[in-house]
């Protein structure tokens, strides 16, 4: 048995997506492309977080806008770091478990419980960054 990606250096990419309902699936597929340089559990965590953040960017900031959501990811043995940017107005993060009976508001709660670190910065739009 030989091969395997254990000696590969870090890998990174930048992805521009439209405000399209399939943008989260596309972003998840790109995260899968990092399989060669990081552990499966980390990849699954990054996949979930990216899905949540791209969904938020599409729904709350970029609906219908071309190439307005940007995903940057960088992966190596030490972990995965990422940021999802949009061009929408700034928002305040709320990451607590929603009240029983709520049907929404779970996205950032899931991000908060999946990422080892995360946060939001506001430049042109919103940039939500994370590490796993």
């Amino acid at each position, binding site marked *: 048995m030989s091969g395997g990606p254990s000696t590969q250096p870090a890998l990174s990419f930048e992805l521009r997506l439209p405000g399209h309902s399939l943008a989260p699936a596309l972003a998840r597929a790109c995260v899968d492309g990092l399989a060669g340089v990081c552990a499966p559990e980390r990849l699954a965590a990054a996949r979930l977080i990216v*899905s949540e953040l791209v*969904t938020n960017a599409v729904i709350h900031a970029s609906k219908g806008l071309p190439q307005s959501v940007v995903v940057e990811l960088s992966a190596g043995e030490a972990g995965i770091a990422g940021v999802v940017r949009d061009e929408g107005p700034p928002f305040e993060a709320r990451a607590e478990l929603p009240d029983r009976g709520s049907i929404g508001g*779970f996205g950032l709660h899931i991000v908060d419980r999946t990422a080892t670190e995360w946060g939001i910065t506001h430049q042109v739009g919103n940039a939500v960054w994370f590490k796993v």
Partner: protein
Amino acid sequence: MDFFEISWDSPGDGCRRGRLRGELDVAAAPTLERDVLQQLADPVEVVVIDLEGLEFLDSSGLRALLMVQEHAQRAGARLVLVPGPPRVQSLFHVAEVVSWFEFCGGTNGHEDGLAGSTT
């Protein structure tokens, strides 16, 4: 791999079961909701959503399942979930909503199975 599919059957009287395959995210959620509303047009006691074939679930999928639960309750029916594979099941734990749903046929939730509840 974006792909989502539901196949419906009736495993018992008053019971409608939808088996999900693929990824339940923001693109797939409207399909699930619309399908369940169609199923609830007839008299139904239990709606079973089987997550065994599901490969991915995020908060948009979770939101759809909560909507489905609400639709079912309004129509006088219960929503029962058949647990999915670990990577799907873990989302309920991460989101801290395991107890918000009635699970059957698995070890990830309540043990009052489907058989008893459909009769």
